[in-house]
């Protein structure tokens, strides 16, 4: 049995109690989880008009991320643009994060993404409104699809890729912050801070879409990318989320939250719970748990707003009805 098959076989029955007691698979033994217990902050934001920078700064007090004198790369979710749908991380939240990290002493803040469908990044920046934010904040945008690239062995081998081409901007960053939109996803169940990392994979090697990753298994690819890149922080834009046929064609949910954590798995687990989804039933999250990352509520220290006050059931496609918590 291969490592991948072993992991797959064991993951299907993963629960809090068994995960804590069961001997770890070989892949999990090779992988050093970020933390046993993770802190996750839920912030309330009724709209993007609020002082989000100050809100993020308050939230950061719950976390140990030190960005002083560091190069911070913010990786929003920038996929496609349709005026009527909330597809991308809101530009005003990106602006707030830029301001927040500058105020916390970052030496440099860069915004970077490698859009997965659209080769015309200039157009995407323009129509999405992110371009205006970058201009007014005087922040550099790096198109990760055409950045310098280096081949890196994957930290885990859930796919058979063995190696990933990764962009220089990500590899040389001191701090990578995944900033996804809180959405359902028609192939992966949910797309949050871990799935958002598909955007660091360069299109120049993997195409538009990055179809290599689909053929190697979406859940497995998410894990191999996340464990190899190991971002430092997640800020999930759930002020407006997307339900139903996400990540592009769903409906807007006015969920009014921002979720933050230095542990991406824990951030995504909390966001999934806020969406009325059991994170243990999301394949890539259950893989992360198998690798030792905190998914169960007992391993997540919830800070800020109470989860149950903001939990609302995001509409799921019929194929994902089993994810309901």
């Amino acid at each position, binding site marked *: 049995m291969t490592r991948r098959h072993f992991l797959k076989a064991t993951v299907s029955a993963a629960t809090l109690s068994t995960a804590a007691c069961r001997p770890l698979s070989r892949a999990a033994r090779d992988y050093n989880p970020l933390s046993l217990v993770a802190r996750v902050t839920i912030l309330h934001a009724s709209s993007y008009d609020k002082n989000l920078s100050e809100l993020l700064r308050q939230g950061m007090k719950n976390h140990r991320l030190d960005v002083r004198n560091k190069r911070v790369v913010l990786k929003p979710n920038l996929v496609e643009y349709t005026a009527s749908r909330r597809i991308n991380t809101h530009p005003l939240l990106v602006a707030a994060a830029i301001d927040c990290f500058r105020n916390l002493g970052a030496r440099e803040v860069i915004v970077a993404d490698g859009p997965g469908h659209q080769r015309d990044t200039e157009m995407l920046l323009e129509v999405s409104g992110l371009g205006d934010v970058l201009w007014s904040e005087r922040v550099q945008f790096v198109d990760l699809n055409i950045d310098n690239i280096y081949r890196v062995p994957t930290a885990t081998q859930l796919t058979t890729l063995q190696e990933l081409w990764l962009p220089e901007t990500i590899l040389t960053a001191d701090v990578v912050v995944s900033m996804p939109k809180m959405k359902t996803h*028609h192939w992966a169940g949910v797309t949050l801070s871990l799935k958002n990392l598909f955007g660091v994979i360069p299109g120049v090697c993997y195409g*538009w879409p990055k*179809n290599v990753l689909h053929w190697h298994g979406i859940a497995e690819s998410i894990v191999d990318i996340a464990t190899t890149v190991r971002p430092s922080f997640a800020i999930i834009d759930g002020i407006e989320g997307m339900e139903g046929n996400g990540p592009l064609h769903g409906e807007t949910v006015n969920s009014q939250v921002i979720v933050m954590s230095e542990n991406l798995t824990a951030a995504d687990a909390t966001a999934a719970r806020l969406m009325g989804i059991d994170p243990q039933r999301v394949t890539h999250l259950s893989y992360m748990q198998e690798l030792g990352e905190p998914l169960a509520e007992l391993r997540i220290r919830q800070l800020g707003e109470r989860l149950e006050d903001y939990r609302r059931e995001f509409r799921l496609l019929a194929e994902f009805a089993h994810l309901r918590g």
Partner: protein
Amino acid sequence: MSRLQDQLSRALEFLAAQQNADGGWPYLPKKRSFPEPTCYALLALEQAAAKVAREERALAYFTGHSVPASALTLAADASSVDNWGTTLAFFTLRRLKLGEELNQRYLRHLLRVRGNLIAPGASAALKLNGQLRTWGWAMGTASWVEPTAYALIALKSQGMSAHERVKEGEAYLLDRACYGGGWNYGNKEVLGVVLEPMPTTTAFALLALQGLESGQEVIARSLAYLERALTEHSSALSLALGVLCLDAWARPTERLLDKLLGRQQADGSWLSNIHLTALAALALQTRVSRKNIFKF
């Protein structure tokens, strides 16, 4: 015309100065070389000074990044085969009459590789013909609109319009066209949702379908979509490809060229990006020298 010539000259000067020591061109100055900007820069500079030395160095780049039994690669090994880069290199080297032996290898690769079959269930859900296997961006993936268009342009411009792979490629593009005209990156529908076309993929697909009747419904709708979309968008990539495509289909391009010229930077580039600048220069050449490298 003199303004156009002046702006074209400055674009070409910018491009000529960006050739890396390995003979290739990067997307952005002082970065590593990639096949796509190398191909378009070479094509844009086809008539520029120092042609022989420039092309010899570029040929060294292609040779150094090719594996003997196969194709162009990203890292000179068989595990990093660059499918779409090989197609662009084939098109470029044939056009410039460079590296015949190398190019034969590229052609063999181009005719050998195919996108994966799409399972019947998925084909039905996506409302597409999953039996059509054309070209993907990378090895071992499905077929996609843009790399298929590159392959058709490369093969048809070499007089291979009757080749069975070309015929299959044309059938693929016609199958994947959006209902209202134009092309998305691959599908026209996903899980019951009709997808919207994109200007850049539409431009390449239309270039690839030259030879078909312009009155054919798919072509007519797609040209109409592209012309409409380009009144709304003014990015360099969309404008440059729009000019090249509409010129090939004998449509007016003056307004698009004006918009494109208006976005040129003082250093002669478009956004300091070699790929964009080369395509913009190729677009300007449709007016200055009445040359359209994608027209066949």
